[in-house]
């Protein structure tokens, strides 16, 4: 981000003579880029900053132009040239200010000093009597919060539940442990607002190595899930037999979703700690299982003759757990270790 500042200055200085005005535009550009950084792919920030700088200047020119034309009129009867573009820019700007206002003074000062003024973490740490590492961590948290507040402000939404902000924050910060703690995956299935808002937050983390998420809605998704699980697990060098056990177990839990809940998702991830292994979470927002103990007994089933799903999957994996709540859904968690202790 800081490396963008000289470039943005150059672009704007080449087009705007007034030094004070140019500096305002630089700040505005950087604030917009900062706010949008979450939606921009890594490596694409520079082109994005260029486009933003030019748009900021263009909208200034439009503004001046309109002002000049309107000086001749008593009443302006014409709609502005590009009402949508202007409106969007204004909304985005308002969202940024609103988001910034929701940070604490300390957070805001730190963030702006670093991102906009370009002060590095070491010198900030010196001023604050802290360490560069602590400042960097604080900056990450603040950025994550800013992204969440920006999206909420842009959407003009107040999150519907108490759990929303913690979930969005965990997603925004890419903090996997925290995401598990707040059960972010389940909340996203239950909460429409967060599901919608988190898209840009998640888009950043997509294609993360060592994790795949397969939405489960139909028979075909069962096959997709087990194939994805096999492919991912093969990266850890599991034996062919183990890969087949994993794929078969995933097939069983995915089918459980289709049969009982209608839809849900299967998330497969590779574990490094405490040992190497593959971790599978299958969750749905279906009716839930009234008696999990009973469901784990062979042959038990509430649908025609397929009682092997969960108990079968348990036998194929090393660790297996079912959590279910009536009316809220079911989460099956299972693990296969690559290295036996």
């Amino acid at each position, binding site marked *: 981000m800081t490396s963008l500042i000289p470039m943005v200055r150059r672009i704007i200085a080449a087009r705007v003579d007034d030094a004070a005005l140019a500096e305002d535009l630089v700040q505005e550009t950087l604030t917009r880029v900062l706010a949008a950084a979450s939606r921009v792919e890594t490596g694409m920030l520079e082109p994005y900053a260029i486009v933003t700088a030019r748009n900021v200047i263009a909208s200034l020119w439009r503004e001046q132009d309109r002002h000049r034309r309107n000086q001749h009129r008593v009443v302006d009867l014409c709609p502005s040239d590009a009402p949508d573009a202007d409106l969007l820019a204004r909304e985005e700007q308002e969202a940024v200010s609103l988001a910034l206002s929701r940070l604490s003074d300390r957070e805001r000062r730190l963030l702006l000093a670093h991102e906009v003024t370009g002060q590095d973490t070491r010198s900030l740490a010196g001023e604050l009597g802290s360490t560069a590492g602590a400042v960097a961590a604080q900056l990450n948290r603040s950025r994550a919060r800013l992204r969440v507040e920006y999206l909420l402000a842009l959407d003009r939404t107040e999150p519907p539940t108490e759990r929303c902000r913690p979930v969005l924050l965990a997603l925004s910060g890419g903090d996997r442990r925290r995401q598990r703690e707040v059960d972010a995956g389940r909340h996203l299935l239950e909460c429409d607002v967060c599901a919608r808002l988190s898209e840009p937050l998640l888009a950043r983390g997509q294609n993360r190595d060592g994790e795949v998420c397969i939405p489960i809605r139909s028979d075909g998704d069962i096959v997709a899930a087990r*194939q994805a699980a096999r492919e991912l697990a093969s990266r850890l060098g599991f034996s062919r037999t183990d890969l087949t056990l994993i*794929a078969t177990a995933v*097939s069983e839990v995915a089918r459980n979703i289709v049969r009982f809940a209608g839809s849900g998702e299967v998330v497969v991830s590779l574990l490094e700690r405490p040992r190497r292994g593959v971790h599978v979470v299958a969750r749905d927002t279906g009716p839930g299982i009234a008696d999990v103990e009973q469901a784990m007994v062979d042959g038990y089933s509430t649908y025609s003759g397929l009682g*092997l799903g969960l108990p079968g999957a348990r036998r194929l994996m090393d660790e297996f757990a079912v959590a279910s709540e009536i009316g809220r859904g079911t989460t099956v968690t299972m693990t296969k270790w690559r290295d036996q202790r």
Partner: protein
Amino acid sequence: MTGGPKLVSILRQGAYLIASVHTALDDSQMVRFRDDLVEQIGRHRSRGVIIDVAALDVLDSFGARTLRTIGELARLRGAVTVIVGIQPDVAFAIVSLGMSTGSLVTALDLEEGLALLDHGVGAGRSTLPDRRRPRR
């Protein structure tokens, strides 16, 4: 099965039907395969059926159960079914799942399957042969 490459082929060879599954089937495709096959057994008055599943990398409870159902439906229509080509790791998974394979007659490959049918499979093997059961 319509459109795209064939998922399954069913060929008639004398009194036998030879069905080959070419790729992973989802549940509905598996059910359609079952119905097609059982229908053809009736139409051709087949005495024996071989189902080659060598291309399947997973036979979960639904897949294994469907094969068992095919075997039972075929038997009721006077045909004997032999499953051939179950991969060793797939066999291991079926056993680990706790599936009962009691009524499934299996053979190593097509040739052995045909030999079983020719000798009237009544006395054929009714479980996964020992030599195909992989060791962990």
